[in-house]
Protein backbone atom coordinates (compact mmCIF):
# COMPACT_ATOMS: atom_id res chain seq x y z
CA UNK A 1 0.00 0.00 0.00
CA UNK A 2 1.36 3.33 -1.05
CA UNK A 3 -0.58 5.28 1.56
CA UNK A 4 0.65 3.20 4.48
CA UNK A 5 4.25 3.55 3.41
CA UNK A 6 3.89 7.31 3.28
CA UNK A 7 2.00 7.58 6.53
CA UNK A 8 3.72 10.87 7.51
CA UNK A 9 2.24 12.58 4.49
CA UNK A 10 -1.15 11.06 5.22
CA UNK A 11 -1.09 12.30 8.82
CA UNK A 12 0.16 15.69 7.66
CA UNK A 13 -2.75 16.05 5.25
CA UNK A 14 -5.27 14.97 7.89
CA UNK A 15 -3.84 17.56 10.31
CA UNK A 16 -3.96 20.23 7.60
CA UNK A 17 -7.61 19.52 6.86
CA UNK A 18 -8.56 19.47 10.58
CA UNK A 19 -6.78 22.77 11.17
CA UNK A 20 -8.22 24.35 8.06
CA UNK A 21 -11.79 23.39 8.96
CA UNK A 22 -11.30 24.81 12.44
CA UNK A 23 -9.85 28.02 11.08
CA UNK A 24 -12.72 28.52 8.66
CA UNK A 25 -15.79 27.16 10.44
CA UNK A 26 -15.20 27.56 14.16
CA UNK A 27 -16.99 30.54 15.66
CA UNK A 28 -14.64 30.89 18.60
CA UNK A 29 -11.59 33.04 17.96
CA UNK A 30 -9.30 31.00 20.20
CA UNK A 31 -10.32 27.81 18.45
CA UNK A 32 -9.57 29.50 15.15
CA UNK A 33 -6.05 30.25 16.35
CA UNK A 34 -5.58 26.69 17.57
CA UNK A 35 -6.81 25.52 14.17
CA UNK A 36 -4.27 27.77 12.47
CA UNK A 37 -1.49 26.21 14.52
CA UNK A 38 -2.65 22.67 13.77
CA UNK A 39 -2.76 23.53 10.07
CA UNK A 40 0.77 24.89 10.19
CA UNK A 41 1.95 21.83 12.11
CA UNK A 42 0.56 19.62 9.37
CA UNK A 43 2.50 21.57 6.75
CA UNK A 44 5.71 21.37 8.79
CA UNK A 45 5.34 17.64 9.33
CA UNK A 46 4.89 17.21 5.58
CA UNK A 47 7.98 19.30 4.91
CA UNK A 48 10.14 17.65 7.57
CA UNK A 49 9.23 14.16 6.38
CA UNK A 50 10.37 15.15 2.87
CA UNK A 51 13.91 15.75 4.03
CA UNK A 52 14.19 12.84 6.44
CA UNK A 53 16.31 9.85 5.47
CA UNK A 54 16.14 6.75 7.62
CA UNK A 55 19.22 6.06 9.78
CA UNK A 56 20.96 9.23 8.58
CA UNK A 57 22.71 11.69 10.89
CA UNK A 58 21.81 15.23 11.90
CA UNK A 59 23.49 17.59 9.44
CA UNK A 60 26.15 18.99 11.75
CA UNK A 61 29.59 18.81 10.19
CA UNK A 62 32.25 17.47 12.62
CA UNK A 63 35.31 19.61 13.32
CA UNK A 64 37.70 16.92 12.11
CA UNK A 65 37.69 13.96 9.80
CA UNK A 66 36.12 13.03 6.49
CA UNK A 67 32.63 14.26 5.62
CA UNK A 68 30.38 12.18 3.43
CA UNK A 69 27.19 14.04 2.45
CA UNK A 70 25.35 10.75 2.06
CA UNK A 71 25.46 10.15 5.83
CA UNK A 72 23.27 13.14 6.63
CA UNK A 73 19.62 14.03 6.19
CA UNK A 74 18.68 16.91 3.87
CA UNK A 75 19.09 20.06 5.99
CA UNK A 76 17.12 22.44 3.75
CA UNK A 77 13.59 21.26 4.74
CA UNK A 78 14.62 21.50 8.41
CA UNK A 79 15.77 25.06 7.82
CA UNK A 80 12.50 25.86 6.08
CA UNK A 81 10.52 24.35 8.96
CA UNK A 82 12.42 26.53 11.43
CA UNK A 83 11.66 29.63 9.37
CA UNK A 84 8.05 28.56 9.08
CA UNK A 85 7.76 28.08 12.85
CA UNK A 86 9.05 31.61 13.43
CA UNK A 87 6.48 32.95 11.01
CA UNK A 88 3.60 31.03 12.58
CA UNK A 89 4.64 32.08 16.10
CA UNK A 90 4.55 35.74 15.15
CA UNK A 91 1.23 35.38 13.35
CA UNK A 92 -0.30 33.57 16.36
CA UNK A 93 1.07 36.24 18.69
CA UNK A 94 -0.55 39.00 16.67
CA UNK A 95 -3.87 37.17 16.43
CA UNK A 96 -3.83 36.42 20.18
CA UNK A 97 -3.14 40.08 20.91
CA UNK A 98 -6.15 40.98 18.75
CA UNK A 99 -8.17 38.40 20.68
CA UNK A 100 -7.27 39.96 24.04
CA UNK A 101 -8.20 43.43 22.84
CA UNK A 102 -11.51 42.22 21.45
CA UNK A 103 -12.33 40.29 24.61
CA UNK A 104 -11.68 43.38 26.73
CA UNK A 105 -14.02 45.39 24.53
CA UNK A 106 -16.86 42.91 24.01
CA UNK A 107 -16.42 40.22 26.71
CA UNK A 108 -16.89 37.43 24.19
CA UNK A 109 -14.76 35.42 21.79
CA UNK A 110 -17.56 34.73 19.33
CA UNK A 111 -17.11 36.76 16.14
CA UNK A 112 -20.84 36.91 15.37
CA UNK A 113 -21.68 38.15 18.86
CA UNK A 114 -19.04 40.84 18.58
CA UNK A 115 -20.61 41.88 15.32
CA UNK A 116 -23.99 42.22 17.00
CA UNK A 117 -22.51 44.25 19.86
CA UNK A 118 -20.83 46.52 17.35
CA UNK A 119 -24.08 47.07 15.43
CA UNK A 120 -25.85 47.92 18.70
CA UNK A 121 -23.16 50.43 19.62
CA UNK A 122 -23.59 52.15 16.28
CA UNK A 123 -27.29 52.60 16.83
Amino acid sequence: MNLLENYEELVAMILFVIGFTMLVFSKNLLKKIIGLNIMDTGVYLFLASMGYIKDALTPIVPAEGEVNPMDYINPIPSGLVLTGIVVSVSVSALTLALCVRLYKKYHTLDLDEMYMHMKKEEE
Partner: protein
Amino acid sequence: MMDFLMNFPFITIVLSLFSAVVAFAFKGSRARFVTYFLLLAGAVMSCFVLAYNLSSETGYFVYRMGHYDAPIGNEISAGLLEPFFVLIFEVVMLLSVLGGKRRIFSDIPEEKQKLFYVMINLCHAALAALCYTNDIFTAYVFVEICTIASCSLLMASDKGKSLIAATRYMIFSLIGSGFLLIGIILIYSITGHLLFTNLYEAITLLWRDGSYNFPLTVAIGLIVSGLCVKSGLFPFHFWMPDTYGTATPAASAILSGVISKGYIFLLFKIIFRVIGFDVFLATGVQNILFVFGILGMVVGSVSAIRTKNIKFMIAFSSAAQIGYIYMGLGLGTRTALVASLFQIISHSLTKSMLFISAGGLCDAAGGKQDFASLRSCAHKNKVAGAVFLAGALSMVGVPIFAGFIPKLLFAASAFEGGAKMFFVLIALAVSTMLNVMYFMRTALTVYYPLGAENGAQAKTRACASFAVCTIVFIALNIAVGLNSQPISSLLEKGIELFMNVR
Protein backbone atom coordinates in the same frame (compact mmCIF):
# COMPACT_ATOMS: atom_id res chain seq x y z
CA MET B 1 30.48 52.12 -10.87
CA MET B 2 27.44 51.09 -12.85
CA ASP B 3 27.51 47.68 -11.22
CA PHE B 4 27.05 49.35 -7.88
CA LEU B 5 23.47 50.05 -8.93
CA MET B 6 22.79 46.34 -8.68
CA ASN B 7 22.97 46.71 -4.91
CA PHE B 8 20.02 49.10 -4.84
CA PRO B 9 17.17 46.55 -4.62
CA PHE B 10 18.92 44.89 -1.70
CA ILE B 11 19.62 48.26 -0.05
CA THR B 12 15.97 49.28 -0.39
CA ILE B 13 14.77 46.13 1.36
CA VAL B 14 17.34 46.04 4.13
CA LEU B 15 17.26 49.77 4.82
CA SER B 16 13.51 49.80 5.35
CA LEU B 17 13.65 46.64 7.46
CA PHE B 18 16.31 48.12 9.72
CA SER B 19 14.76 51.54 9.89
CA ALA B 20 11.54 49.91 11.10
CA VAL B 21 13.52 48.83 14.14
CA VAL B 22 15.41 52.11 14.46
CA ALA B 23 12.33 54.27 14.07
CA PHE B 24 10.80 52.41 16.98
CA ALA B 25 13.49 53.85 19.26
CA PHE B 26 12.98 57.42 18.07
CA LYS B 27 11.05 59.96 19.99
CA GLY B 28 7.70 61.34 18.89
CA SER B 29 7.20 62.33 15.32
CA ARG B 30 10.71 61.61 14.05
CA ALA B 31 9.61 58.15 12.94
CA ARG B 32 7.40 59.93 10.43
CA PHE B 33 10.30 61.64 8.74
CA VAL B 34 12.26 58.38 8.58
CA THR B 35 9.32 56.87 6.69
CA TYR B 36 9.07 59.81 4.26
CA PHE B 37 12.80 59.75 3.68
CA LEU B 38 12.90 56.00 3.05
CA LEU B 39 9.98 56.01 0.65
CA LEU B 40 11.59 58.87 -1.25
CA ALA B 41 15.01 57.22 -1.24
CA GLY B 42 13.43 53.94 -2.33
CA ALA B 43 11.69 55.67 -5.22
CA VAL B 44 14.95 57.30 -6.34
CA MET B 45 16.78 53.99 -6.14
CA SER B 46 14.07 52.23 -8.14
CA CYS B 47 14.44 54.94 -10.81
CA PHE B 48 18.16 54.23 -10.97
CA VAL B 49 17.64 50.47 -11.25
CA LEU B 50 15.04 51.00 -13.97
CA ALA B 51 17.36 53.33 -15.89
CA TYR B 52 20.23 50.87 -15.51
CA ASN B 53 18.15 48.01 -16.88
CA LEU B 54 16.82 50.13 -19.73
CA SER B 55 20.35 51.04 -20.77
CA SER B 56 21.95 47.62 -20.31
CA GLU B 57 21.98 45.05 -23.10
CA THR B 58 19.98 42.29 -21.44
CA GLY B 59 17.76 44.56 -19.41
CA TYR B 60 17.90 42.05 -16.61
CA PHE B 61 20.21 41.08 -13.79
CA VAL B 62 20.39 38.53 -11.01
CA TYR B 63 22.03 39.61 -7.78
CA ARG B 64 23.62 37.01 -5.55
CA MET B 65 22.96 37.36 -1.83
CA GLY B 66 25.81 36.17 0.35
CA HIS B 67 28.71 34.04 -0.79
CA TYR B 68 27.08 31.05 -2.43
CA ASP B 69 26.07 30.55 -6.04
CA ALA B 70 22.73 29.58 -7.50
CA PRO B 71 21.42 26.31 -6.13
CA ILE B 72 22.50 27.04 -2.54
CA GLY B 73 22.42 30.82 -2.08
CA ASN B 74 19.58 33.28 -2.19
CA GLU B 75 19.04 35.68 -5.09
CA ILE B 76 17.40 38.93 -6.09
CA SER B 77 16.40 39.53 -9.69
CA ALA B 78 15.34 42.71 -11.42
CA GLY B 79 14.14 43.19 -14.95
CA LEU B 80 12.10 46.12 -16.20
CA LEU B 81 8.84 45.37 -14.43
CA GLU B 82 10.21 44.92 -10.91
CA PRO B 83 11.80 48.37 -10.40
CA PHE B 84 8.92 50.02 -12.23
CA PHE B 85 6.28 48.53 -9.97
CA VAL B 86 8.31 49.14 -6.84
CA LEU B 87 8.59 52.76 -7.97
CA ILE B 88 4.82 53.04 -8.42
CA PHE B 89 4.14 51.39 -5.06
CA GLU B 90 6.58 53.68 -3.25
CA VAL B 91 5.16 56.81 -4.83
CA VAL B 92 1.59 55.78 -3.98
CA MET B 93 2.56 54.92 -0.40
CA LEU B 94 4.36 58.23 0.07
CA LEU B 95 1.43 60.22 -1.29
CA SER B 96 -1.08 58.26 0.79
CA VAL B 97 0.87 58.74 4.00
CA LEU B 98 1.31 62.45 3.35
CA GLY B 99 -2.26 62.97 2.19
CA GLY B 100 -3.78 61.08 5.11
CA LYS B 101 -1.52 62.76 7.67
CA ARG B 102 -4.20 64.75 9.41
CA ARG B 103 -6.47 61.75 9.79
CA ILE B 104 -3.56 59.66 11.11
CA PHE B 105 -3.18 62.28 13.85
CA SER B 106 -6.87 62.30 14.69
CA ASP B 107 -7.67 58.58 14.30
CA ILE B 108 -4.75 56.93 16.00
CA PRO B 109 -3.91 57.32 19.70
CA GLU B 110 -0.85 59.48 20.04
CA GLU B 111 1.44 56.88 21.58
CA LYS B 112 0.69 54.49 18.70
CA GLN B 113 1.35 56.86 15.82
CA LYS B 114 5.02 55.96 15.85
CA LEU B 115 4.12 52.28 15.46
CA PHE B 116 1.91 53.12 12.51
CA TYR B 117 4.93 54.53 10.68
CA VAL B 118 7.05 51.55 11.73
CA MET B 119 4.47 49.27 10.14
CA ILE B 120 4.52 51.33 6.96
CA ASN B 121 8.28 50.85 6.81
CA LEU B 122 7.77 47.11 7.19
CA CYS B 123 5.15 47.09 4.43
CA HIS B 124 7.58 48.97 2.21
CA ALA B 125 10.35 46.44 2.86
CA ALA B 126 8.00 43.50 2.30
CA LEU B 127 6.61 44.92 -0.95
CA ALA B 128 10.06 45.61 -2.35
CA ALA B 129 11.10 42.09 -1.40
CA LEU B 130 7.97 40.57 -2.97
CA CYS B 131 8.76 42.30 -6.24
CA TYR B 132 12.51 41.69 -6.31
CA THR B 133 12.95 38.23 -4.81
CA ASN B 134 14.12 35.30 -6.87
CA ASP B 135 13.46 32.66 -4.22
CA ILE B 136 10.04 31.24 -3.57
CA PHE B 137 10.42 30.66 0.17
CA THR B 138 11.70 34.18 0.70
CA ALA B 139 8.59 35.29 -1.13
CA TYR B 140 6.46 33.34 1.37
CA VAL B 141 8.23 34.86 4.38
CA PHE B 142 7.74 38.38 3.05
CA VAL B 143 4.11 37.65 2.22
CA GLU B 144 3.65 36.90 5.92
CA ILE B 145 5.55 40.01 7.00
CA CYS B 146 3.33 42.02 4.69
CA THR B 147 0.22 40.40 6.20
CA ILE B 148 1.30 41.16 9.77
CA ALA B 149 2.26 44.74 8.96
CA SER B 150 -0.94 45.46 7.05
CA CYS B 151 -3.08 43.95 9.80
CA SER B 152 -1.36 46.24 12.28
CA LEU B 153 -2.08 49.21 10.03
CA LEU B 154 -5.76 48.26 10.17
CA MET B 155 -6.00 47.84 13.92
CA ALA B 156 -4.04 51.02 14.64
CA SER B 157 -7.11 53.17 15.20
CA ASP B 158 -8.08 50.98 18.19
CA LYS B 159 -11.85 51.10 17.74
CA GLY B 160 -13.98 48.00 18.17
CA LYS B 161 -15.07 48.11 14.56
CA SER B 162 -11.58 48.23 13.15
CA LEU B 163 -10.42 45.46 15.49
CA ILE B 164 -13.15 43.14 14.22
CA ALA B 165 -12.32 44.09 10.65
CA ALA B 166 -8.64 43.40 11.27
CA THR B 167 -9.51 39.98 12.70
CA ARG B 168 -11.53 39.06 9.65
CA TYR B 169 -8.79 40.32 7.36
CA MET B 170 -6.26 38.27 9.32
CA ILE B 171 -8.33 35.09 9.05
CA PHE B 172 -8.75 35.43 5.29
CA SER B 173 -5.08 36.23 4.89
CA LEU B 174 -4.08 33.21 6.95
CA ILE B 175 -6.21 30.91 4.80
CA GLY B 176 -4.45 32.40 1.78
CA SER B 177 -1.01 31.94 3.30
CA GLY B 178 -1.84 28.35 4.21
CA PHE B 179 -2.67 27.53 0.60
CA LEU B 180 0.40 29.39 -0.65
CA LEU B 181 2.71 27.59 1.78
CA ILE B 182 1.43 24.12 1.00
CA GLY B 183 1.61 24.85 -2.74
CA ILE B 184 5.21 26.00 -2.39
CA ILE B 185 6.11 22.91 -0.38
CA LEU B 186 4.45 20.59 -2.91
CA ILE B 187 6.47 22.20 -5.68
CA TYR B 188 9.62 21.91 -3.58
CA SER B 189 8.98 18.25 -2.85
CA ILE B 190 8.47 17.53 -6.55
CA THR B 191 11.43 19.51 -7.90
CA GLY B 192 13.83 19.93 -4.98
CA HIS B 193 14.49 23.58 -5.79
CA LEU B 194 13.53 26.94 -4.32
CA LEU B 195 15.11 29.45 -6.70
CA PHE B 196 12.91 30.69 -9.54
CA THR B 197 15.41 29.87 -12.29
CA ASN B 198 16.00 26.27 -11.19
CA LEU B 199 12.32 25.73 -10.51
CA TYR B 200 11.46 26.90 -14.01
CA GLU B 201 13.89 24.46 -15.61
CA ALA B 202 12.69 21.57 -13.48
CA ILE B 203 8.99 22.30 -14.01
CA THR B 204 9.38 22.65 -17.78
CA LEU B 205 11.19 19.32 -17.98
CA LEU B 206 8.69 17.56 -15.71
CA TRP B 207 5.72 18.90 -17.65
CA ARG B 208 7.20 17.69 -20.91
CA ASP B 209 7.83 14.32 -19.33
CA GLY B 210 4.19 14.16 -18.28
CA SER B 211 4.52 11.89 -15.24
CA TYR B 212 3.90 14.57 -12.59
CA ASN B 213 1.27 16.65 -14.31
CA PHE B 214 -1.45 16.10 -11.72
CA PRO B 215 0.59 17.00 -8.60
CA LEU B 216 2.06 19.98 -10.47
CA THR B 217 -1.40 21.21 -11.41
CA VAL B 218 -2.54 20.87 -7.79
CA ALA B 219 0.49 22.78 -6.54
CA ILE B 220 0.04 25.55 -9.12
CA GLY B 221 -3.64 25.76 -8.27
CA LEU B 222 -2.86 26.07 -4.55
CA ILE B 223 -0.29 28.83 -5.07
CA VAL B 224 -2.60 30.75 -7.39
CA SER B 225 -5.63 30.39 -5.12
CA GLY B 226 -3.60 31.40 -2.07
CA LEU B 227 -2.53 34.65 -3.69
CA CYS B 228 -6.05 35.20 -5.06
CA VAL B 229 -7.54 34.94 -1.56
CA LYS B 230 -4.98 37.40 -0.27
CA SER B 231 -5.53 39.91 -3.04
CA GLY B 232 -9.32 39.64 -2.78
CA LEU B 233 -10.57 38.01 -5.96
CA PHE B 234 -14.35 37.66 -6.21
CA PRO B 235 -15.60 34.98 -3.80
CA PHE B 236 -13.03 36.12 -1.23
CA HIS B 237 -13.70 39.85 -1.38
CA PHE B 238 -16.10 39.99 1.58
CA TRP B 239 -13.48 41.22 4.01
CA MET B 240 -12.77 44.25 1.82
CA PRO B 241 -15.56 46.69 2.72
CA ASP B 242 -15.16 46.20 6.47
CA THR B 243 -11.41 46.53 6.45
CA TYR B 244 -11.15 49.44 4.04
CA GLY B 245 -14.20 51.15 5.46
CA THR B 246 -13.10 51.26 9.08
CA ALA B 247 -9.37 51.94 8.83
CA THR B 248 -7.83 55.40 8.67
CA PRO B 249 -7.76 56.67 5.04
CA ALA B 250 -4.00 56.34 4.66
CA ALA B 251 -4.20 52.67 5.72
CA SER B 252 -7.12 51.93 3.38
CA ALA B 253 -5.31 53.64 0.52
CA ILE B 254 -2.15 51.66 1.13
CA LEU B 255 -3.99 48.37 1.60
CA SER B 256 -6.18 48.59 -1.46
CA GLY B 257 -3.81 50.51 -3.70
CA VAL B 258 -0.54 48.86 -2.93
CA ILE B 259 -0.58 45.74 -0.81
CA SER B 260 -3.18 43.74 -2.71
CA LYS B 261 -1.37 44.77 -5.90
CA GLY B 262 1.91 43.55 -4.45
CA TYR B 263 0.45 40.06 -4.08
CA ILE B 264 -0.85 40.21 -7.64
CA PHE B 265 2.56 41.25 -8.90
CA LEU B 266 4.11 38.32 -7.04
CA LEU B 267 1.55 36.05 -8.71
CA PHE B 268 2.56 37.40 -12.12
CA LYS B 269 6.21 36.86 -11.31
CA ILE B 270 5.60 33.29 -10.13
CA ILE B 271 3.49 32.48 -13.17
CA PHE B 272 6.09 33.74 -15.61
CA ARG B 273 9.35 32.93 -13.89
CA VAL B 274 8.56 29.79 -11.89
CA ILE B 275 5.76 27.98 -13.66
CA GLY B 276 6.35 29.26 -17.16
CA PHE B 277 3.47 30.77 -19.07
CA ASP B 278 3.05 27.82 -21.44
CA VAL B 279 2.75 25.35 -18.59
CA PHE B 280 0.37 27.71 -16.80
CA LEU B 281 -1.88 27.87 -19.86
CA ALA B 282 -1.71 24.08 -20.21
CA THR B 283 -2.98 23.54 -16.66
CA GLY B 284 -6.22 25.36 -17.41
CA VAL B 285 -6.08 27.40 -14.18
CA GLN B 286 -6.40 30.57 -16.24
CA ASN B 287 -9.95 29.66 -17.26
CA ILE B 288 -11.02 29.57 -13.60
CA LEU B 289 -9.36 32.94 -13.03
CA PHE B 290 -11.18 34.28 -16.08
CA VAL B 291 -14.59 33.18 -14.79
CA PHE B 292 -14.04 34.53 -11.28
CA GLY B 293 -12.53 37.74 -12.66
CA ILE B 294 -15.65 38.42 -14.73
CA LEU B 295 -17.97 37.46 -11.88
CA GLY B 296 -16.00 39.77 -9.60
CA MET B 297 -16.35 42.67 -12.03
CA VAL B 298 -20.12 42.37 -12.04
CA VAL B 299 -20.80 41.30 -8.43
CA GLY B 300 -18.40 43.90 -7.00
CA SER B 301 -20.10 46.67 -8.94
CA VAL B 302 -23.59 45.53 -7.97
CA SER B 303 -22.62 45.45 -4.29
CA ALA B 304 -21.11 48.92 -4.70
CA ILE B 305 -24.47 50.20 -5.96
CA ARG B 306 -26.37 48.66 -3.07
CA THR B 307 -24.23 50.02 -0.24
CA LYS B 308 -24.98 53.33 1.44
CA ASN B 309 -21.50 54.08 2.75
CA ILE B 310 -18.98 55.91 0.59
CA LYS B 311 -15.97 53.94 1.79
CA PHE B 312 -17.77 50.60 1.40
CA MET B 313 -18.65 51.68 -2.12
CA ILE B 314 -14.99 52.38 -2.96
CA ALA B 315 -13.98 49.07 -1.39
CA PHE B 316 -16.50 47.09 -3.43
CA SER B 317 -15.33 48.92 -6.51
CA SER B 318 -11.82 47.63 -5.63
CA ALA B 319 -13.18 44.10 -5.81
CA ALA B 320 -14.55 44.87 -9.26
CA GLN B 321 -11.30 46.40 -10.46
CA ILE B 322 -9.27 43.43 -9.22
CA GLY B 323 -11.63 41.30 -11.29
CA TYR B 324 -10.37 43.15 -14.39
CA ILE B 325 -6.78 42.21 -13.57
CA TYR B 326 -7.62 38.52 -13.23
CA MET B 327 -9.76 38.61 -16.36
CA GLY B 328 -6.69 39.80 -18.30
CA LEU B 329 -4.59 37.04 -16.81
CA GLY B 330 -7.31 34.56 -17.75
CA LEU B 331 -7.41 35.76 -21.35
CA GLY B 332 -3.72 35.03 -21.63
CA THR B 333 -2.90 37.00 -24.79
CA ARG B 334 0.00 39.45 -24.85
CA THR B 335 -2.22 42.53 -25.07
CA ALA B 336 -4.39 41.28 -22.23
CA LEU B 337 -1.35 40.82 -20.01
CA VAL B 338 -0.18 44.35 -20.77
CA ALA B 339 -3.71 45.54 -19.99
CA SER B 340 -3.66 43.69 -16.66
CA LEU B 341 -0.36 45.22 -15.64
CA PHE B 342 -1.58 48.64 -16.74
CA GLN B 343 -4.72 48.07 -14.70
CA ILE B 344 -2.54 47.41 -11.64
CA ILE B 345 -0.83 50.78 -12.16
CA SER B 346 -3.91 52.82 -12.90
CA HIS B 347 -5.98 51.22 -10.16
CA SER B 348 -3.21 51.68 -7.63
CA LEU B 349 -2.98 55.39 -8.48
CA THR B 350 -6.74 55.96 -8.64
CA LYS B 351 -7.99 53.93 -5.70
CA SER B 352 -5.56 55.43 -3.21
CA MET B 353 -6.56 58.88 -4.45
CA LEU B 354 -10.23 58.01 -3.94
CA PHE B 355 -9.68 56.76 -0.40
CA ILE B 356 -7.69 59.84 0.58
CA SER B 357 -10.29 62.19 -0.90
CA ALA B 358 -13.14 60.21 0.70
CA GLY B 359 -11.37 60.77 4.01
CA GLY B 360 -11.44 64.51 3.33
CA LEU B 361 -15.12 64.41 2.35
CA CYS B 362 -16.07 62.48 5.47
CA ASP B 363 -14.22 65.04 7.58
CA ALA B 364 -16.26 67.78 5.95
CA ALA B 365 -19.43 65.82 6.75
CA GLY B 366 -18.52 65.60 10.41
CA GLY B 367 -16.90 62.16 10.36
CA LYS B 368 -19.93 60.34 8.93
CA GLN B 369 -19.58 58.04 5.96
CA ASP B 370 -23.15 57.47 4.75
CA PHE B 371 -24.47 59.22 1.67
CA ALA B 372 -27.20 61.09 3.52
CA SER B 373 -24.68 62.94 5.68
CA LEU B 374 -22.29 63.44 2.79
CA ARG B 375 -24.77 65.46 0.81
CA SER B 376 -23.19 68.66 -0.62
CA CYS B 377 -20.05 68.25 1.48
CA ALA B 378 -17.87 68.86 -1.58
CA HIS B 379 -18.73 72.54 -1.21
CA LYS B 380 -17.20 72.53 2.24
CA ASN B 381 -13.99 70.83 1.23
CA LYS B 382 -13.41 71.91 -2.37
CA VAL B 383 -10.10 70.11 -2.86
CA ALA B 384 -11.42 66.76 -1.66
CA GLY B 385 -14.49 67.13 -3.89
CA ALA B 386 -12.42 67.88 -6.97
CA VAL B 387 -10.06 64.99 -6.29
CA PHE B 388 -12.94 62.61 -5.76
CA LEU B 389 -14.44 63.72 -9.06
CA ALA B 390 -11.15 63.15 -10.87
CA GLY B 391 -10.82 59.71 -9.28
CA ALA B 392 -14.38 58.83 -10.23
CA LEU B 393 -13.78 59.90 -13.84
CA SER B 394 -10.64 57.79 -13.96
CA MET B 395 -12.44 54.76 -12.49
CA VAL B 396 -15.26 55.08 -14.98
CA GLY B 397 -12.74 55.24 -17.82
CA VAL B 398 -12.89 58.73 -19.26
CA PRO B 399 -10.08 59.45 -21.74
CA ILE B 400 -6.99 61.40 -20.58
CA PHE B 401 -7.30 59.70 -17.18
CA ALA B 402 -5.29 56.57 -16.38
CA GLY B 403 -8.35 54.34 -15.96
CA PHE B 404 -9.24 54.64 -19.65
CA ILE B 405 -6.16 52.89 -21.03
CA PRO B 406 -6.60 49.41 -19.49
CA LYS B 407 -10.24 49.31 -20.57
CA LEU B 408 -9.19 50.16 -24.12
CA LEU B 409 -6.45 47.51 -24.04
CA PHE B 410 -8.84 44.91 -22.60
CA ALA B 411 -11.33 45.60 -25.37
CA ALA B 412 -8.56 45.35 -27.97
CA SER B 413 -7.28 42.10 -26.49
CA ALA B 414 -10.76 40.59 -26.47
CA PHE B 415 -10.54 40.18 -30.23
CA GLU B 416 -7.50 37.93 -29.85
CA GLY B 417 -9.20 35.83 -27.18
CA GLY B 418 -11.30 33.60 -29.45
CA ALA B 419 -14.34 32.21 -27.69
CA LYS B 420 -13.82 34.42 -24.67
CA MET B 421 -14.26 37.61 -26.75
CA PHE B 422 -18.00 37.73 -26.26
CA PHE B 423 -17.82 37.48 -22.46
CA VAL B 424 -15.05 40.07 -22.16
CA LEU B 425 -16.89 42.65 -24.21
CA ILE B 426 -20.19 42.13 -22.38
CA ALA B 427 -18.51 42.17 -18.97
CA LEU B 428 -16.62 45.36 -19.87
CA ALA B 429 -19.79 47.06 -21.03
CA VAL B 430 -21.87 45.98 -18.03
CA SER B 431 -19.17 46.79 -15.51
CA THR B 432 -18.54 50.22 -17.03
CA MET B 433 -22.25 50.99 -16.97
CA LEU B 434 -22.47 49.99 -13.31
CA ASN B 435 -19.32 52.02 -12.55
CA VAL B 436 -20.91 55.08 -14.09
CA MET B 437 -24.06 54.52 -12.05
CA TYR B 438 -22.49 54.45 -8.63
CA PHE B 439 -19.76 56.98 -9.18
CA MET B 440 -22.13 59.46 -10.77
CA ARG B 441 -24.58 59.03 -7.91
CA THR B 442 -21.84 59.72 -5.39
CA ALA B 443 -20.48 62.68 -7.32
CA LEU B 444 -23.98 64.14 -7.60
CA THR B 445 -24.58 63.61 -3.90
CA VAL B 446 -21.43 65.35 -2.76
CA TYR B 447 -21.99 68.21 -5.22
CA TYR B 448 -25.65 68.64 -4.31
CA PRO B 449 -26.35 72.40 -4.27
CA LEU B 450 -26.08 73.99 -0.85
CA GLY B 451 -29.53 74.57 0.56
CA ALA B 452 -30.76 76.71 3.43
CA GLU B 453 -30.57 73.85 5.94
CA ASN B 454 -26.94 72.96 5.36
CA GLY B 455 -25.51 76.13 3.87
CA ALA B 456 -24.74 77.74 7.17
CA GLN B 457 -22.09 75.21 8.19
CA ALA B 458 -18.53 76.44 8.25
CA LYS B 459 -16.11 75.38 5.56
CA THR B 460 -13.35 73.07 6.66
CA ARG B 461 -9.98 74.11 5.37
CA ALA B 462 -8.02 71.36 3.66
CA CYS B 463 -4.57 71.07 5.19
CA ALA B 464 -1.62 71.86 2.95
CA SER B 465 -0.15 68.38 2.69
CA PHE B 466 -3.57 66.98 1.76
CA ALA B 467 -3.98 69.55 -1.01
CA VAL B 468 -0.47 69.10 -2.39
CA CYS B 469 -0.68 65.29 -2.34
CA THR B 470 -4.03 65.10 -4.00
CA ILE B 471 -2.94 67.51 -6.72
CA VAL B 472 0.13 65.37 -7.33
CA PHE B 473 -2.19 62.35 -7.46
CA ILE B 474 -4.34 63.98 -10.15
CA ALA B 475 -1.26 65.08 -12.09
CA LEU B 476 0.21 61.58 -11.99
CA ASN B 477 -3.09 60.07 -13.04
CA ILE B 478 -3.36 62.35 -16.05
CA ALA B 479 0.33 61.92 -16.87
CA VAL B 480 -0.10 58.14 -16.96
CA GLY B 481 -3.26 58.54 -19.03
CA LEU B 482 -1.56 60.77 -21.58
CA ASN B 483 1.72 58.83 -21.78
CA SER B 484 0.15 55.43 -22.18
CA GLN B 485 2.23 54.54 -25.23
CA PRO B 486 5.69 54.56 -23.60
CA ILE B 487 4.34 52.87 -20.48
CA SER B 488 2.60 50.07 -22.31
CA SER B 489 5.66 49.48 -24.50
CA LEU B 490 7.75 49.30 -21.32
CA LEU B 491 5.29 46.78 -19.87
CA GLU B 492 5.41 44.77 -23.08
CA LYS B 493 9.20 44.68 -23.01
CA GLY B 494 9.04 43.67 -19.37
CA ILE B 495 6.69 40.77 -20.13
CA GLU B 496 8.98 39.72 -22.96
CA LEU B 497 11.86 39.62 -20.45
CA PHE B 498 9.72 37.73 -17.95
CA MET B 499 8.86 35.09 -20.54
CA ASN B 500 12.07 34.58 -22.41
CA VAL B 501 15.16 35.74 -20.54
CA ARG B 502 16.41 33.50 -17.75
